[in-house]
């Protein structure tokens, strides 16, 4: 018996080695228990941005497209699509067997309605701003018409950005932002809503009539809330949960990396593109001079931040687009540490050092909460900028709204900030640089008051450039200018990591990570 087993095992291993396939066939059943520290306000991503709603929202609602790990659009609710010659319209051919969780068919009417709802209510206005109309020639064809070519629409139709919501539920005239169905949604995706206890848990269950045959594999997804990153990490370490995305505390990541039953990866955050930077208010009397801003760039040792402060788990950020995006530009001014150059730039700008070595003082704000990316880096700036004669004073904010009010209201000199790319540059990058988006009172707009007509022109061109190679090259050019103008000093990407049990197969590691449908995830 024993011999027989080992012979079988040996043959099996040989077979596996020969084919190179070690993973088993996906099988149905099992529960994914996910930990989170984010409290969802509700579950409808059509009217609410942010991770907390996006993770459950993408399980409940399907989008027209999905993206693979190579930034390639793949069919999802739309089985095929085509773009008109001038790029001013995109035709989506929907699956004919797709139904909402209440059994009613998903039609082009719903697509048109969902897009209108997102356009009206979602904070990312640039996603569908060029949409002038959505035609519905038949129940399974939707045609998006733009006033100019709008290639960003593809990414905007994936992830959590264009959930297809039922018109017969949300179209009853109630305000979409406060609709009661937001907390008790009738979805279109692989998992249907079971229970939502705010701040405690979200329970989702396999939708039997899901439009992709044989999927999803999981019976259930439970999203459990933890009060902080440490307790979620401990739960993962002990095996209470089997999936933990969006980890950002480097000590917690390092701890889970030691656990042999877990896989820990930084894949799945390419589309989010989370950047940590030092924002410089260009209307400040010192910072309005580009040379002063560049001098600050040359004074900061980003390698120290990434390797010493973040244990090598974050990545260097060099520009407005995060590394990992096809639009990332590597060929920009890297601002390698050069204190002498910084000093001479400050001298040129006319801010000579006084007898005590000081030139001038600047305050730095930072987002309160976890300190690793924000406060610790701000603290590092103090002794570092002192070396070139800039006296830095930290200004603590007691809570997030206070910080947001200061930075949004342009009442700051320098501030640590975290801004996400959200897939296409049109969605998450343009907002920080266009002259038209200097909007006092709005956080994560152009709070640096940076305005460069050349940048505006290039961004406008890139937004409607249909040729992908040309579009990438336009974004390369514009990033070169922005980085050199230095309205921010780009520091690092957030060290987002996902930890998951070795028992989980096909972990969601496409560009949207866990903000994408987990219909092919299975338990081994």
């Amino acid at each position: 018996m024993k011999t027989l087993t080992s012979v079988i095992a040996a043959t099996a291993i040989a077979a596996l080695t020969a084919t190179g396939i070690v993973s088993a066939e996906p099988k149905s059943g099992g529960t994914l228990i996910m930990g989170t520290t984010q409290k969802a306000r509700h579950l409808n991503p059509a009217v609410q941005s942010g991770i907390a709603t996006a993770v459950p929202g993408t399980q409940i609602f399907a989008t027209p497209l999905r993206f693979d790990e190579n930034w390639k659009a793949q069919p999802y609710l739309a089985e095929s699509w085509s773009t008109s010659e001038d790029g001013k319209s995109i035709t989506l051919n929907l699956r004919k067997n797709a139904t909402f969780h209440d059994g009613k068919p998903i039609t082009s009417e719903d697509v048109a309605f969902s897009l209108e709802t997102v356009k009206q209510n979602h904070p990312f206005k640039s996603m569908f701003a060029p949409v002038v109309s959505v035609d519905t020639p038949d129940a399974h064809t939707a045609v998006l018409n733009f006033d100019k070519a709008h290639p960003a629409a593809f990414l905007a139709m994936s992830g959590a950005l264009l959930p297809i919501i039922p018109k017969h539920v949300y179209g009853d005239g109630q305000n979409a932002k406060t609709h009661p169905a937001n907390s008790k949604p009738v979805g279109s995706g692989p998992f249907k809503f079971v229970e939502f206890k705010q701040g405690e848990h979200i329970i989702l269950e396999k939708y039997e009539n899901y439009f992709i045959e044989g999927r999803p594999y999981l019976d259930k997804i439970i999203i459990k809330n933890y009060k902080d990153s440490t307790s979620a990490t401990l739960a993962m370490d002990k095996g209470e949960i089997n999936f933990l995305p969006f980890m950002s505390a480097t000590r917690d990541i390092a701890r889970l990396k030691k656990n042999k039953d877990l896989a820990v990866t930084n894949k799945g955050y390419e589309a989010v593109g989370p950047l940590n930077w030092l924002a410089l208010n260009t209307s400040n009397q010192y910072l309005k001079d580009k040379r002063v801003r560049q001098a600050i760039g040359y004074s900061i040792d980003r390698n120290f931040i990434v390797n010493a402060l973040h244990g090598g788990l974050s990545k260097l950020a060099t520009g407005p687009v995060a590394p990992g995006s096809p639009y990332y530009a590597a060929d920009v001014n890297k601002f390698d540490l050069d204190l002498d150059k910084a000093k001479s730039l400050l001298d040129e700008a006319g801010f000579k050092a006084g007898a005590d070595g000081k030139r001038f003082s600047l305050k730095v704000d930072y987002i309160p909460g976890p300190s690793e990316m924000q406060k610790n880096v701000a603290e590092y700036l103090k002794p570092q900028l002192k070396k070139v004669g800039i006296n830095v004073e930290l200004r603590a904010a007691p809570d997030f709204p206070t910080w947001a009010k200061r930075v949004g209201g342009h009442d700051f000199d320098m501030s640590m900030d975290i801004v996400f790319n959200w897939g296409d540059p049109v969605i998450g990058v343009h907002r920080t640089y266009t002259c038209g988006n200097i909007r006092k009172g709005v956080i994560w707009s152009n709070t640096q008051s940076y305005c460069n007509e050349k940048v505006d022109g290039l961004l406008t061109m890139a937004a409607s450039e249909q040729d992908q190679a040309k579009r990438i090259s336009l974004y390369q050019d514009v990033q070169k200018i922005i980085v050199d103008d230095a309205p921010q000093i780009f520091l690092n990407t957030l060290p987002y990591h996902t930890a998951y049990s070795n028992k989980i197969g096909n972990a969601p590691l496409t560009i949207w990570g866990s903000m994408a449908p987990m219909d092919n995830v299975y338990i081994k």
Partner: protein
Amino acid sequence: MSSIETQFIPKSQHPIVEAIKAFRQSWAGMLGLILLLLVILFSVAGPFIYAVDPFEIIWAPLTAPGVVANAPFGTDHLGRDVLAGLVYGGQATLFVGLTAGFLTITIGILVGAMAGYYGGGVDEILMRITEFFQVLPALLFAMVLVTLFTPSIYVVSAAIGIVSWPTTARLTRAEFLRIKNLEYVKAAQSIGARDNRIIWRVVLPNSLAPLIVSATLTIGVAILFEAGLSYLGLGDPNAFSWGMMIGAGREYILDAWWLVTLPGIMIFLTVLGFSLIGDGLNDAFNPRLRER
């Protein structure tokens, strides 16, 4: 001292001199005084002897004590010298303790003296206000005050003072109620002394003993309070205090014990010093204890 000489010394000395004598005999008080003097020496003279900028990054983050010569007490989460932090942190810590303690005592005595001496309606109103402050959860109230203004060591000191005075006020009031009906106060009133003079020159000096004891304890409590606020992230990020060091080090407690332990020991010694002095003063001012 010979027995002949002692016969010429008057039997009754000035109460302060008596108290100092008694204090010197108090084991607790003297130990407290020595502790406190050491802490003050460390904090005031330290920066001159160990002149390292506590903000400067000198070595790899989270280096343990004793690993490298230039960071004998290790480095913090940014790679700054912990010993330099301790040396500089003492001044801010003592500053907050003393300022907040002074504020507590001043407001407490003012309110308590008015309420106790005048009684009646004044007492009613002042005591209701005192009670209002007393029933507010002190830490929460201090957090609100610090939140309303930008956290700085002045705001933190002021907030601690504002939430801590009711105890002193009640103590002062009780003393005033006891003393204001004694004969020497009546005598002062009968010769036409004004209230101001009676309160500050007659009643207050005679109620000082418990207030001084209370004041020393208040300073210790204020230092702990500052540590608590800093722990919750409401300290001044531009100043080094021991409380701030604990607050920043708490995230690393599993990997770097020294970040929390060393400033913790400093706070412990300081607060212990103030408490022991309070004990000693209590012994010294209490005639019944003194006779034993």
